Structure formats: C-alpha cells, structure tokens
C-alpha cells in the first residue's frame, strides 16, 4: 500500500514537472514556477514516504530478529550448546589433571631413583678413594693424583660405567 502511494506520488510529480515544462514553453508568466514547486514537493513527499517505509521494514526486521533470538527454542538451543561445551571442558580438564598426576608421579620416581643412584655412586667413589689411599706407597704421586682426580670427576658426572672402569684399572695396576 505504501509503495503504491509512493509510486503514485512519483508519477504525479513527474506529470506535474512535465506540465510545468509545457507551460514554460507556452511562455505563461507565474504558473510554471508554482507548478514546478508543486512537482518538487510531490517528489520530495514520494521519497520521504519511501524512506519511512524502508525504516519501518528495517524496524520490523529488527523486532522480529530480537523476538526470535529470545524465543523459547533459541534459548533452549543456546542452553544445550552451553552445557555441551561445559561437558567437553570438564572432560578436557579431567584429562589434563590426570596427565599432571602422571607427570608428578614420574618426577617423584625419577627423584627417588636419582637419589638412590647418587648414594651408591658415592659409596663406590669412596671405596675407590680408599683403595687409592691404600696404594699410596705403590703408585707415583702424579698417577695417584690423576686417578683421584678422575674419581672425583666421574663421581661429579654420576658416571657409573666410568667409575667401574676406573676400579678395574686400579685393580690391574695393583696386580
């Protein structure tokens, strides 16, 4: 209906403007100016009506969109989606916590093992040191110092294989 009014106004405006043009051709004094003003007014009205109609349509769409957004169905769907996301988050959190527990467990085990290794390597190094002290008179000072240094070095590096080899070397030297 509004479009019809707007179109009608538009056609009238063009007709009036055409009439003004014809009257201007006939060299009439005041009438063409008045009719041109009238035509322009009609044209303005037509565009104003179209603009109002556009605004009305947009407002209607906005209201409809808002009412759809807050409708029971949409709200329900959003709620379900929210809970599903929360569920997935919970699962992920559980996985991460389990992973953390496993990591801490492995770390504690490694610490225990390292502590035990250190303790026994210290005993081995001490035994080597005592062996070297016992062999003080049979070895040259430089060899003794070198062997003691090697012992300290391997002990610091926590190198069990090198310490065992050193022990074997000392045994070979003494035999």
């Amino acid at each position, binding site marked *: 209906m509004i479009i019809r009014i707007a179109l009608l106004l538009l056609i009238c405006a063009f007709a009036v403007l055409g009439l003004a043009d014809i009257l201007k051709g006939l060299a009439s004094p005041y009438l063409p100016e008045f009719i041109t003003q009238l035509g322009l007014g009609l044209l303005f009205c037509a565009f104003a009506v179209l603009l109002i109609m556009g605004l009305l349509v947009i407002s209607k769409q906005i209201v409809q969109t808002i009412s759809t957004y807050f409708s029971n169905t949409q709200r*329900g*769907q959003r709620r379900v989606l929210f809970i*599903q996301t929360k*569920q997935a988050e919970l699962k992920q959190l559980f996985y991460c916590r389990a992973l953390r527990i496993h990591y801490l467990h492995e770390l504690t085990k490694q610490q225990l093992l390292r502590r*035990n290794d250190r303790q026994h390597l210290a005993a081995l190094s001490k035994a080597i040191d005592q062996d070297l002290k016992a062999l003080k008179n049979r070895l040259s000072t430089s060899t003794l110092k070198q062997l003691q240094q090697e012992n300290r070095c391997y002990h610091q590096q926590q190198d069990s294989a090198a310490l065992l080899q050193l*022990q074997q070397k000392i045994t070979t030297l003494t035999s």
Partner: protein
Amino acid sequence: MSIKNWLLKAVDLLHSIKDEKLRWQIDNQDRQLQLKQARILAENQLADELKKKSVQLEHDISLLHTQNATELAMLKIKCKQDIKDYQQYLAALDKLKDSIKNSYTQLPEAVAFTIHHHAKQLLNQLWEAENFEDKMRHEMQLIQFMTTVHEDASATLQGKTQDKLPEKTLALISNRRLV
C-alpha cells in the same frame, strides 16, 4: 480509444489477479491455519525437548563431575601406592646389597655396585613394562635374581662354599648381558 481499451484490460487483469488471490486464500484458509498451528506445536515441542535435553545434560555433568573427582582421587592413591612400592623395592635392593656385602667380607665395592645396579635395572624394566605379560616376565626375572643373590649369601654364611665372589649371581648377570 485503443489506450482506453488497453487501460481497461490492465485494470481487469489486476482485478482478476486480486480475485484469484482471494479465492486461493479462501480455499487454503484451513490449511494455512493448520500449518500455523502445526508450526506453533512443533516449536513448543522442540522447546520442551531442548529443556529436557538440557536437564539431562546437567544431570550428566554432575555425574561426570563426581566420576572425574573419584577417578582422580583413585589415580592419586594409585600413584602414591606405586611410589611407596617403588621406594620399598629400592630399600629391599639396598638391603640385598648390604646382605651380600656382609656375606662376602672381601667383596669389592665395584662388584656389589654391579649387582645392585643390575637389580635396579630389572626393577626399572618391571616398572616401565607396558603390558601385563612383560610385567610378569620382568617380575620373574627380578625375583629369580634376588633369590640367586640370597642363595649365594646364605651359602657363604652357612659355609657351604668357599667362593670369594657370588659366582652364581655374577654368572646370571653375564648371561643376561649376553642375551
């Protein structure tokens, strides 16, 4: 005249279109109403279903929460127990080393260290085994090794052998290394 006729025809056409539209609306009024009602019903039904689903999901979440908390607590207890067991095994291996050193007074520290180190390797293999069969196999190996060490130690203490070194244990270690 022809323009007038043309205009009249156009007006007739417009009226006929309007008539047709009205007729169609009258004919399909019931169906339109039904459709509208069906749509409202379907929307209500969907809203109800979604409500039920959200209630169910919330219930599932609370269950999952409890289940996760229980499982995590169980896992923590299991890990604590595991560490405790590992600590006890390490202490047992330390005792094993002490007992072999007490039995063989002349035993070099390097040999005692090697025996202890081998036992620890077996223990770690047992701990790191992925499946049950491997676990059992490594456990058997560790038990066999510990038994051999005890046999050597008790044989020396009881004076059954004059060996200066735990020969059986060392043979077992060299065999394992060859394998």
